[in-house]
């Protein structure tokens, strides 16, 4: 046995990879299958799962309702469809905003003097590694009616002699958007920086020799070559934004409900794991479809590992 192991490269490889593969199989792949099975089940009165095969959870998620106002047997209830749509558009808006903030900063760092580059990068890493929950809390304090943003706007208004009454920014869709952008900004800066830094500087000389101006050089050289970073960053931002529930929970109060909140409540408050599982699978399918089409168009950069 030991002799065979010493000679067989294939057996050695299998053995080395076995612990990881088994661990991931048990704690990532089996749970996914279990979620699938549970999503076809039905909730028992005490909140447990009755294993059957019904599409009820899915039809309910897509608006089929038997709880209708005017005595009809069934009708369309857009509640959950709206939640899915809201999550998608929030993820989209967040990603676009994050790209437009991250790109200039990544460009600035990549073109900074090599001696200062590490310090600028370090300044991005500190907010990145500051805990997610703490960062949401920081915005909670800023966005409050009595918070710093209202105070600063008040000062400016006072200076300009414009009347201004502080208003509640917390618990609005805007607060959730700002929080999401803040949370995920560093995840976009790092991959874009990595791809920008790789660009061969002689390409710029070539572009200049061929008579391209700054804008043309950016559009024809810099932007295309930094696309792998943008793609990797988008994956690192879009997917988690789709599933996050803390930001909307804390900054949106009970006003802004996303798929993440819906799923979380099914497992904790409402105690309907079957409906929660169905929502969670729809969430997964939505992110996989978006990621698939996006990466098929632009490729899947190795930048993703760097961040």
């Amino acid at each position: 046995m030991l002799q065979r192991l010493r000679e067989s490269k294939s057996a050695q490889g299998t053995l080395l990879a076995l612990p990881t593969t088994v661990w991931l199989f048990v704690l990532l792949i089996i749970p996914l299958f279990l979620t699938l099975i549970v999503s076809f089940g039905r909730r028992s009165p005490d909140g447990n799962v009755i294993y059957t095969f019904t599409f009820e959870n899915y039809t309910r998620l897509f608006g089929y309702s038997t709880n209708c106002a005017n005595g009809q047997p069934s009708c369309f209830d857009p509640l959950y469809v709206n939640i899915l749509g809201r999550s998608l558009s929030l993820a989209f808006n967040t990603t676009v905003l994050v790209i437009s903030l991250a790109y200039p900063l990544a460009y600035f760092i990549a073109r900074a003097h090599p001696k200062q580059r590490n310090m600028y990068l370090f300044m991005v890493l500190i907010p990145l590694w500051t805990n997610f929950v703490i960062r949401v809390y920081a915005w909670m304090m800023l966005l409050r009616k009595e918070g710093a943003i209202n105070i600063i706007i008040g000062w400016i208004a006072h200076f300009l002699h414009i009347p201004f009454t502080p208003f509640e920014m917390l618990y609005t869709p805007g607060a959730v958007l700002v929080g999401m952008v803040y949370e995920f900004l560093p995840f976009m800066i790092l991959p874009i920086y990595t791809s920008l830094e790789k660009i061969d500087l002689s390409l710029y000389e070539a572009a200049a020799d061929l008579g391209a101006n700054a804008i043309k050089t950016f559009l024809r050289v810099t932007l295309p070559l930094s696309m792998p970073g943008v793609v990797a960053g988008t994956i690192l931002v879009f997917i988690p934004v789709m599933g996050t529930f803390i930001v909307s929970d804390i900054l949106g109060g009970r006003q802004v409900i996303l798929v993440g909140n819906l799923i979380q409540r099914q497992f904790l408050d409402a105690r309907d794991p079957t409906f929660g599982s169905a929502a969670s699978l729809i969430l997964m399918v939505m992110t996989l479809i978006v990621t698939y089409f996006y990466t098929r168009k632009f490729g899947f950069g190795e930048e993703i590992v760097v961040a």
Partner: protein
Amino acid sequence: MNPFRRSPFVLTAAVLVYIFLYAPIIGLVLYSFNASRANVTFEGFIPKYSDRIVMEGSLVKSSPCGPFHWYCELAKNNDVAEAAGNTLTIAFIATIISTIIGTMAALALQRYNFKMKPFSQLSLYIPIVIPEIVMGIGILTLFSQFFGWVNETFNLVGNARLSLGMATVTASHIAFMVPFVALVVQARLQGFDKSYEEAAMDLGANEWITFRRVTFPIILPGIMSGALLAFTLSLDDFVITFFTNGPGSTTLPIYVYGLLRRIITPQVNALSTVWILVVFVAVLLLQILQNRESKDHS
């Protein structure tokens, strides 16, 4: 064209983004010195040191710790100490296990050919492409169904009943940390000059000695940064922990989240500030480690 040229637009945008990144953090730190217990507005620093805490309404007038009043309160808080202990215990155990098995997997995937290789490689990408909440509720379902079945089948009662706790959190952390360790180590192995190993073999070293004396020291910095990354991911994790923790396994992020839904005193800010300082030191260490490594390579 000078590549180090900075356009005023890029410079302005960069400064504004840095302000956006740091303003909330600075605000957070400032409010940790707030004299107001209600912590809604900043009522100035706590002015005086005294033998005991003097309050006037919700304002702290003086304290044995002066302006650092909330840090002293934090130090006295047993819940925080317990949560910090749990967080570190989980992170240490999960980092050790995930670093060992992740490095093994990276070696296997980079150096060997075997039947389940495509499957192993693919499974490493799961935590990247699937939202954390999907993993979280999946693992919760697995544990609750399995534990329910075991408890029922073996008629377990009282403390013998299986339930969510430190073990489930640690096991779940390993599941999402291993892929990161494996991918980082794999990336280092890709840029590895094989001639060192060939030289060792030519000089008569067997495979094990070659690994221990040549391969391992060369990839060690890679393993270390993988481990440090995994450790930070574990300390920082909220979602997976949220769904897999049970009584007695509250971690710091879970504890803070719980506080945010109740009364928030400047103690939360003091805790956040200490945490940010720890992160600062950790990131600094990581950077020094990586710099040293890139110097070794060149």
